[in-house]
């Protein structure tokens, strides 16, 4: 381990995608509804109300435990974590403390050096989400907060890793892999706002560790940790001792801030929740049937579709993406797999990210048609990208969707092969307009040919097949030379 080795451990909280809350029958589908509309005496913490455990949430958590190779304990129990905060209606959170649902386990990620690396897990436990504060007003007119208990009681699973990650990038990979695994298990919906929260422990070898709280996005993890690595290394370089402390990540600025106040140093006074019986669910493990998980699917993509390892990794890294790929190639796996993998992994993802669009907005049938057109070789890759961009832009602007074939014909993008007249004309024009390049070419300067190719491409608006264009240009130049 290098002298300034970075050491990272994560605590990941994910909302389990059950229909009802962890301890009452209230619906978890609250995001489009008004505040305090999905509440009852139990999740409002009204005096006298008692929790009743939602069995489904334990089944979900156990699926995760099994998929992550954890050991489900013979007996686990719920405990109360006591602290005051206005979003916490009972002034305690029902969570698991010294008897969690499961312990141990691991998750494999692609290491920075290539290959797979095992990140060991400490434990998995189940707990309830608190409510949510909405801050109102401003400095002049008085600040105040409103509280919404719709979120109170949503089941959370907390997955705690060992400090096994060696870089912010690995932490992000761990998180992405974890997300994929949870999605494959159909227990988690990463699209739901606020469905994931991460606390990270980070230290530089031989120094105290710092806990960074309040990270709420996948990108945020890498950002927060990268900031911390720089901050901590700078302090060490200046000879300042790193304090063991809790810091908060500020998503908007990308920095972490010390939460220095004493009030943050809680003594949670854990004790077993007397209103719930201990859990004895170890025997359920054998009956849990796991679906195909990301690693298995990745290997299958390589074997079945001949995907490259990198493409397979990208495609199976998200459940939706993997499903999308298989939908596209379903009709013609032999003919479409390689093209589809390339176009989805190398092009589509980038274009979607650029537009902040989700895969849901891509019509699989239309995308299949595009890949099919590309397979027939009737348009160039460059035109393919143009068509794809038009399709995405139309969707984004809510314009009627045009079929790829219609776009090709409207913009006259079909390759000009067979119509060599247009290419010949373009070549002649390019040669006439660039006597210097011609000279350079004859003088044996390598860049000149590419320069001329570029000009011809521009004149044919990318419709010319690059191979054909090249051949014709070289021929024309030979004629000139002769």
């Amino acid at each position, binding site marked *: 381990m290098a002298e300034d080795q970075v050491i990272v451990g994560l605590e990941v909280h994910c909302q389990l995608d059950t229909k009802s809350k962890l301890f009452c029958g209230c619906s978890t589908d609250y995001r489009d509804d008004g505040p305090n509309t999905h509440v009852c005496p139990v999740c409002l913490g009204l005096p006298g109300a008692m929790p009743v455990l939602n069995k489904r949430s334990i089944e979900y958590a156990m699926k995760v435990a099994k998929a992550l190779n954890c050991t489900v304990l013979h007996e686990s129990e719920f405990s109360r974590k006591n602290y005051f905060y206005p979003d916490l209606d009972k002034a305690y959170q029902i969570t698991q403390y010294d008897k969690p649902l499961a312990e141990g386990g691991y998750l494999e990620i692609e290491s920075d050096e290539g290959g797979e690396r095992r990140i060991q897990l400490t434990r998995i436990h189940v707990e309830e989400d608190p409510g949510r504060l909405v801050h109102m007003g401003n400095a002049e007119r008085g600040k105040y907060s409103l*509280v919404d208990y719709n979120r109170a009681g949503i089941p959370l699973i907390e997955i705690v890793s060992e400090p096994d990650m060696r870089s912010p990038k690995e932490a992000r990979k761990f998180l992405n892999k974890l997300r994929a695994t949870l999605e494959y298990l159909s227990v988690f919906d990463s699209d739901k706002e606020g469905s994931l929260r991460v606390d990270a422990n980070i230290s530089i070898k031989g120094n105290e560790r710092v806990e960074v709280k309040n990270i709420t996005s996948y990108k945020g993890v890498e950002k927060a940790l990268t900031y911390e690595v720089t901050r901590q290394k700078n302090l060490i370089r200046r000879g300042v001792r790193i304090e063991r402390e809790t810091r908060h990540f500020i998503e908007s600025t990308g920095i972490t801030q010390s939460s220095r106040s004493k009030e943050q140093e809680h003594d949670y006074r*854990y004790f077993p929740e007397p209103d719930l019986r201990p859990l004895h669910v170890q025997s359920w493990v054998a009956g849990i049937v796991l679906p195909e998980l990301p690693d298995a699917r990745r290997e299958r993509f390589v074997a079945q579709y001949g995907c490259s390892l990198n493409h397979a990794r990208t495609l199976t890294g998200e459940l939706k993406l993997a499903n999308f790929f298989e939908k596209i190639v379903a009709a013609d796996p032999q003919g479409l797999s390689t093209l589809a993998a390339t176009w989805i992994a190398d092009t589509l993802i980038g274009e979607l990210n650029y537009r902040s669009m989700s895969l849901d907005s891509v019509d699989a049938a239309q995308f299949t048609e595009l890949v099919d057109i590309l397979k027939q070789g009737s348009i160039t890759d460059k035109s393919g990208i143009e068509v794809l961009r038009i399709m995405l832009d139309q969707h984004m602007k809510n314009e009627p969707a045009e079929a790829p074939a219609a776009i090709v014909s409207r913009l006259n993008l079909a390759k000009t092969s067979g119509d060599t007249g247009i290419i010949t004309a373009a070549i002649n024009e390019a040669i006439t307009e660039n006597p210097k390049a011609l000279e350079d070419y004859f003088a044996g300067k390598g860049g000149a040919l590419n320069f001329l190719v570029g000009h011809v491409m521009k004149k044919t608006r990318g419709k010319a097949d690059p191979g054909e264009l090249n051949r014709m240009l070289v021929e024309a130049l030979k004629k000139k030379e002769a």
Partner: protein
Amino acid sequence: MESYELTFEPDDRYNAFLAVCKKAPYGKGKLSGIAVAVKDNISTRGIETTCGSKILKGYIPPYDAHVVELLRNSGAAIVGKTNMDEFGMGTTTENSAFGPTLNPCDTGRVPGGSSGGSAAAVASNMVPMALGTDTGGSIRCPAAFCGIVGLKPTYGRVSRFGLIAYSNSLEQIGPMGQTVSDISTLMQVIAGKDRKDSTSYDRPYTHTPVADIKGLKIGIPGEYFGEGVDPKVAGVVKTAIDRLEELGATTVPCSIPSMKFALAAYYVTCTCEASSNLARFDGVRYGPGADPKKSWHEAYKEVRRAGFGTEVRRRIMLGTFALSSGYYGKYYAKAQVARENVKADFARIFSEVDLIAGPTMPSIAFKLGEKSDPLSMYLSDILTVPANLAGIPAISVPCGKAEGMPVGLQIMGRSFDDERVIDAAYAYEQAVN
């Protein structure tokens, strides 16, 4: 369901009621038209429920406790909410924020607690039966002091859903009445599994009391007649036990050595749980509101300081301390070990006897203001807390008088043997009346 109305205008000279329903609706069923009073820590939809505390003044629950729903379904008329020591924390009902309840047998004395309002309402004939709750003797103590019958059922036999928790692992809702038959009738209505209370068991009560204890073996623990027990009370209870022998039971002496630690285990457990249970009273959702102009923690402090009485604050602080980091093992964990020892002692005794009998309380009802020092008040729970620690059923049935005040005979049984406990009390009651 047909609905009728019961007019209820009691002469409440004992301050037994905190809320009275002058026109109490009722329906058809086993308890049709019978006036039932409900302790004020049991949630009643539409009727103010305060736990005898200022911090819940004005709180009107939007839902019924499971037992209240069962009472309504069986036709009972819920006629009011009865006074109690604040959140059940007391043995006299003097700790109510709304003034003490007086003992109908002697208004210069306390009715016992914490279900003192329910006991006084029954003892003064304002109602034939009532619900109380028993965390460490809170049904049996006032039953003994006021000369009525009160049962703490087996833990888990009656749903606690809607009972405003003081100490979840110890407390049970139970019946209080003028006769053992009334107790049995109420049990028929309120016992059984409730899926809203995960600690409740599927053990409904369908029994009708039988006055027959022939051949039963009754253990008499030496600790129940030892130091701290008023000899006059002990004498009355011994006579009652002789009566049980005359009825065909045999008695054997026994011992509960773990009783040495019972009170400590009890007070650590209940204060720990209470410190957590009572943390939710912050003025944000119900009760007197927090000042929105103050920061939340300032507002919380203000609401809680003004809302809780002295004894409640004392127990919250004790529990908070006992659970705090570094002390958990010394107090809470140790208390649970002591509790297991109490259970083990009872298990051992019950492998040889069917029932255990002794006094309910070590003395007759205290004079108002007599127990001003908290420790001496805690000591008076010594004979009732073992049943709560072990979760076993225990009944108090009137068995005579000392210094003109009622004395209670306590009969305890195995877990889920509530029927046998009731039968023994019934046999005694039938024999002496």
